[in-house]
């Protein structure tokens, strides 16, 4: 009887299914996604307010008792859970009296949207640049590699802040592309660009190695053009690397967004993101610690779950990588193993 044969994707899926930690992480991430996607439902049907609506001088009835959303002394109401039918579930966000729970949910949408979209752009840019540089070599490689080196030479957060602050005032205008200073696309583009070298360089390296393989030579000898070789022959062999980098990028990008927003160079008010909420929450951390703690915990959970899942995905798609990583971590390296 012949052994059952399975494709590499099926095998990877089986390996991933056996990694319980990765699956739990995926489930946690899924729950977070559901939580943030439910923001409009919660805002419209439970809290009856939007994320940016202020309620400074309003009062609400909590368990039959009339209370100020923000006291005359300026102190916001704390968590009332379901005491007001879900309104101000996590309390108000400071002197402005905005519903913290609604902002947390909408802020999560912003953070995840920025993380995912910028990771997609990074992946797209890095894959194209890595393929071009690795396949063509020569001057093309020199130009692309030096350009990446220039971006790489700046510390990520510093470059992000510089671009964020500069673009927050005048916005961005390149040809037909015009973005207002407070557009969410500004932090997305900044994050996507500053992380591109971190992904493009390894892809270029892998393309350099693949270019010398027989299947590439065979395709060229059959008359395949450069585009066909790059996207028809090389790219399918890069998928596992690209997918793993993409997931890890989401987490990194979310962290960078949080850092930029915390430092005032990311998402612009009145919009919320978890990073921005930590930043404003820190200002009242002594009297209302939950305002910084809640978005902080959500950032932690999201980034951790994506990272663990990303690791699991890498192990599933490229089992040898785990061996290589363990060897790097201190295990004796088997003689002759490529690192």
């Amino acid at each position, binding site marked *: 009887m012949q052994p059952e044969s399975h494709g590499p994707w099926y095998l990877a899926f089986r390996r991933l299914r056996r990694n319980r930690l990765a699956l739990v992480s995926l489930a946690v991430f899924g729950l977070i996604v559901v939580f943030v996607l439910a923001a409009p439902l919660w805002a419209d049907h439970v809290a009856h307010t939007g994320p940016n609506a202020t309620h400074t001088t309003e009062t609400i009835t909590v368990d039959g008792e009339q209370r100020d959303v923000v006291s005359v002394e*300026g102190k916001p109401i704390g968590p009332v859970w379901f005491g007001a039918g879900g309104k101000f579930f996590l309390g108000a966000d400071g002197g402005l009296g905005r519903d913290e729970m609604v902002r947390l949910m909408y802020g999560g949408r912003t953070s995840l949207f920025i993380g995912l979209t910028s990771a997609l752009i990074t992946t797209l840019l890095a894959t194209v640049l890595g393929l071009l540089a690795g396949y063509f070599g020569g001057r093309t490689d020199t130009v692309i590699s030096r350009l990446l080196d220039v971006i790489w030479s700046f510390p990520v957060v510093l470059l992000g802040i510089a671009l964020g602050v500069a673009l927050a005032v005048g916005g961005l205008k390149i040809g037909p592309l015009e973005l207002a200073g407070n557009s969410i696309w500004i932090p997305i583009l900044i994050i996507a660009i500053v992380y591109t070298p971190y992904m493009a360089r390894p892809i270029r390296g892998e393309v350099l190695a693949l270019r010398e393989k027989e299947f590439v030579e065979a395709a060229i000898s059959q008359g395949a053009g450069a585009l066909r070789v790059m996207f028809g022959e090389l790219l399918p062999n890069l998928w596992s690397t690209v997918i793993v980098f993409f997931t890890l990028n989401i987490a990194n990008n979310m962290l960078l967004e949080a850092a930029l927003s915390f430092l005032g160079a990311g998402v612009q*008010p009145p919009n919320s993101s978890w990073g921005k909420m930590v930043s404003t929450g820190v200002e009242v*951390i002594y009297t209302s610690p939950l305002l910084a703690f809640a978005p902080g915990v959500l950032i932690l959970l999201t980034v951790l779950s994506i990272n663990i899942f990303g690791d699991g995905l890498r192990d599933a798609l490229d089992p040898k990588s785990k061996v290589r990583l363990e060897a790097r971590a201190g295990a004796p390296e088997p003689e002759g193993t490529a690192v």
Partner: protein
Amino acid sequence: MAAIGLAACGSSSDSSSGKEGGTLTGTFAGFPDYLDPALSYTQEGWTSMYNTYIPLLTYKHADGAEGSQVIPGLAKEMPKISDGEKTYTLFLRPGLKYSDGTPVKASDFTYAVERLFKSNSGGSPFYTGIVGAEKFAETKQGGIPGIETNDKTGEIVIHLTKPRGTFTNELGLMFVAPVPPGTPSSDQSTTPIPGTGPYMITTASRSKGWSYARNPYWEKDNSKAMPDLPSGHMDKIDIKIIRNASTQVNETEQGKFDWMQTQPPPDRYPELKAKFEGTQFRVENTISTYYFWMNVNKPPFDDLKVREAVNYAVDPKALERIYVGSLVGTQQILPPGMPGYEKFELFPHDLAKAKALIKEANPADMNVTVWGDNEAENEAAVVYYNDVLGQLGFKTKLKIINADNYFTLIGNQSTPELDTGWTDWFQDYPHPNDFFQPLLSGESIQPTNNTNLSEIDDPKLNQKIAELGEVPLDPEVEAEYAELDKKYMEQAPWAPYGNRTVSTFVSSAVDLDKVIFNLTFGQDLTSFQFK
């Protein structure tokens, strides 16, 4: 002149006890707009340079109303006013030196005034009344014939085109403090200009802070020439820029810093007040107005109904809560304590009425850009304002700018989309003209360092400001200023919302009772003394 109704905070400076010397470490949340006497037009900048660049006249180093008294600075005595109040004659005190040893000359005053115009300073409108100044402001060349100086005798004669009742006050502002000839006209914030006061700025970095040392020529020469001015107790003053106000509070409480210039964050304010009031913490009244400006030349704010609607919609009570007790609501230009202040409320909060006015006005352009800075309460105030405009149906674009650059940016008319935004104004001197002339007169609209942010330019009201500015204050003139306040608010170029109180918070090592809070210059660095 009417008495300013402010409680004098703290006791007067008594240097007979306490420690002399030492290094005072203070914190600011950011670098002032400028550390250049010709350019700075913020309280932070003036606090920083009050004891470094001394004008011909200066303000008494005292709390409350007493600190609003103009006294001779580099000039021997108060000016002799003649020629129908159009000529001011002063004499420079002999033997004065800058902190680099250069002797101070009478002609340095002319140089300082010319430098002010060359740099398009926000303070230049105060001095356009000098004969030839207006032309110089345009051409930047040919000198100002209205200022005559004699370096040998130290005589300085200033000719005005017409009488100006506030000119003595204006000679006390550091805009026209003499600086050494040859000082470039460009911003010298990070390359400190030699000064004449007891402290000289030694280093300045926009990101880290700045330091002062004793001016070596103060003790030797200048203090003998100006015995009425205090010499200060500290040998050195280091100012650190610490963005996070809570960190400033913690470290001042722990004694790592001796003084925080920044206001405590909202959640720390009640705690500090309860725990340290009287020992390390003091609430200071200010003569200030916080307001949202609306550009009356740009739609939709070119329509009076829209501006009235905004005034009805903004609720000073909400802003009192946002400022956590450090703001008292208002709806007018002049603040309490300023001569001419008479309380009125033209636009009691009424959102429904505001919405009806917008409906009536039916503006074609509902897109507005809203500007604000990123200091905690100010940012919250502008976010509130943004929400209010949203409730009125406007499609808003909010721009929050770093506080270090905010005033420079919104004061530059080439900045696009200057529709509306937040700002504040603290008195330069105790005269109501100081609110009307720079903030509402058409003359004050400038391409850079603009202070008339609503760009209101009403010829009749301009004329009234000019007329009132020519005569000395008396009860009749004060009543006219009160009327002017109403006349402007009927045009609603602003939505004023509050008058601010600020605080002084020092470490336990500093003697709070001796710290002077001057209504114009804030905390007086010469008054800080360790116990």
